[in-house]
């Protein structure tokens, strides 16, 4: 009997998973089902290069069509999965087809909340390429852009709009943007970057309602995503701000896996964590695929993401929910620095501003649970590679 694996979701995570399944030598049927009308594409440019019109739609696709056809991957686009049956498991597709499979991967991503606003041509969120097209069209005639949320997506849209010459007001609920992720000092640096580029950033502002008026303002709501857990929840799987999975991306139901934006993964370094970033979608998708094939491998990547805003390349690796010490390497004033976040001497996270090399080298320290000497971290003469403990 032919073995069958089903991947629910045709975003980058699903794409990475099906490519990895074939790459690892699985020779049964692979079915990828996606609600969007496109093959997996990259979302990072949607708030940046693509939004500004610097990148074509064709360039968003990470794998060409041939990577699916030549690998004999059955792709069902614009197709929703209506139900997951955990015993088996099996999935039920829009249109009535039922696929009984050896394994099912949930890579269903998330959707951006509208905060009670009615979707329209001038009240928008950003998740899909069509969303980006709508925002771009709205910006072309906009009197002003109001961005709700100064997180990474909102801030990137704000930066792109400034680049297009649009006036921008950005509303942030917190007194200091990103304070929980990068601390007060760095949050203030981040706020200053936007104000220096002409953004009217208003902090401590809670949005109570979003209404359209007769002015030309456009509203983009960028307050993160809600994970698409409906299938898993309806199937009785354990859900807690995401589909709960163990270190190997296994859900509470045998044969059912989850990865990417939707998965709350038990990370060996950081504990349970749901990550909404590109690199994780790719790497965790591939790791879940290997897990579906029975590879005994805990996903322990230290996590990494970037955000480009104006001429600032910001990168973060690792994760710290709290820390008791920060160490700065380089010059904050010149926007050329890395900040290390430590707890009990262990390096948990690093934030780099125009310091990609430091971030990449620090990732090795984070993965190794290193306790680097703070003086050495701060000393730019010290090569961070020399601080990795011998294994």
């Amino acid at each position, binding site marked *: 009997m032919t073995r069958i694996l089903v991947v629910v979701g045709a975003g980058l995570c699903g794409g990475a998973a099906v490519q990895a399944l074939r790459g690892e030598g699985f020779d049964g049927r692979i079915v990828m089902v996606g609600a969007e009308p496109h093959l997996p594409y990259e979302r990072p440019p949607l708030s940046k290069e693509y939004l500004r019109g610097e990148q074509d739609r064709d360039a968003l696709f990470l794998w060409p069509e041939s990577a699916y056809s030549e690998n004999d991957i059955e792709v069902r686009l614009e197709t929703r999965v209506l139900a997951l049956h955990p015993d088996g498991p099996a999935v039920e597709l829009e249109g009535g087809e039922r696929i009984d499979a050896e394994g099912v991967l949930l890579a269903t991503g998330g959707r951006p909340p509208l905060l009670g606003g009615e979707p329209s041509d001038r009240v928008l969120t950003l998740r899909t390429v069509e969303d980006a097209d709508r925002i771009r069209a709205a910006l072309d005639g906009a009197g002003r852009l109001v961005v709700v949320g100064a997180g990474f997506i909102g801030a990137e849209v704000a930066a792109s709009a400034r680049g297009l010459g649009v006036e921008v007001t950005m509303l942030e609920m917190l007194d200091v943007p990103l304070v929980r992720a990068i601390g007060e000092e760095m949050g203030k640096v981040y706020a200053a970057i936007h104000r220096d580029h002409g953004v009217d950033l208003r902090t401590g502002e809670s949005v109570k309602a979003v209404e359209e008026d007769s002015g030309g303002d456009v509203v983009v709501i960028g307050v993160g995503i809600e994970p698409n857990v409906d299938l898993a929840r309806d199937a009785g799987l354990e859900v807690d701000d995401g589909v709960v999975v163990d270190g190997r991306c296994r859900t509470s139901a045998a044969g059912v896996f989850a990865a990417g934006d939707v998965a709350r993964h038990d990370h060996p370094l950081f504990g349970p964590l749901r990550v909404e970033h590109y*690199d994780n979608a790719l790497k965790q998708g591939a790791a879940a695929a290997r897990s579906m094939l029975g590879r005994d491998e805990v996903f322990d990547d230290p996590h990494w993401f*970037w955000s480009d805003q104006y001429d600032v390349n910001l990168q973060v690796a690792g994760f710290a929910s709290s820390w008791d010490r920060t160490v700065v390497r380089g010059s904050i004033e010149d926007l050329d620095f890395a900040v290390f976040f430590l707890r009990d001497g262990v390096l948990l996270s690093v934030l780099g501003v125009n310091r*990609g090399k430091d971030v990449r080298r620090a990732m090795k320290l984070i993965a190794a649970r290193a306790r680097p000497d703070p003086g050495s971290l701060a000393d730019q003469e010290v090569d961070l590679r020399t601080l990795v403990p011998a294994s």
Partner: protein
Amino acid sequence: MAERVAGRDDIPVGEMRSFEVGGREVAVANADGTFYAFEDECTHQFCRLSEGDIEGDRVICACHGSEFDLETGDAVNPPATEPVETYSISVEGDDLLVDLG
């Protein structure tokens, strides 16, 4: 025609340097004693690859993590999908010579 870019001891193991050769920016990498030369521009967002890192047989872009095979120039980790151009490099005596071909 091959052009001298540096002495072989000028680029320590695990390091890269950037040179202008024939009007092009060329990165020269020393990966565990083997030298490689390639275009010093990532095919993703045009960052200088020489400001990244070498890991094993790959160069990693510092901006967005794209990885290229040092030998072939192939993009082996996204977000880049297009290869970088590689150039032939040779060691003659104490000199590193790059040939754009």
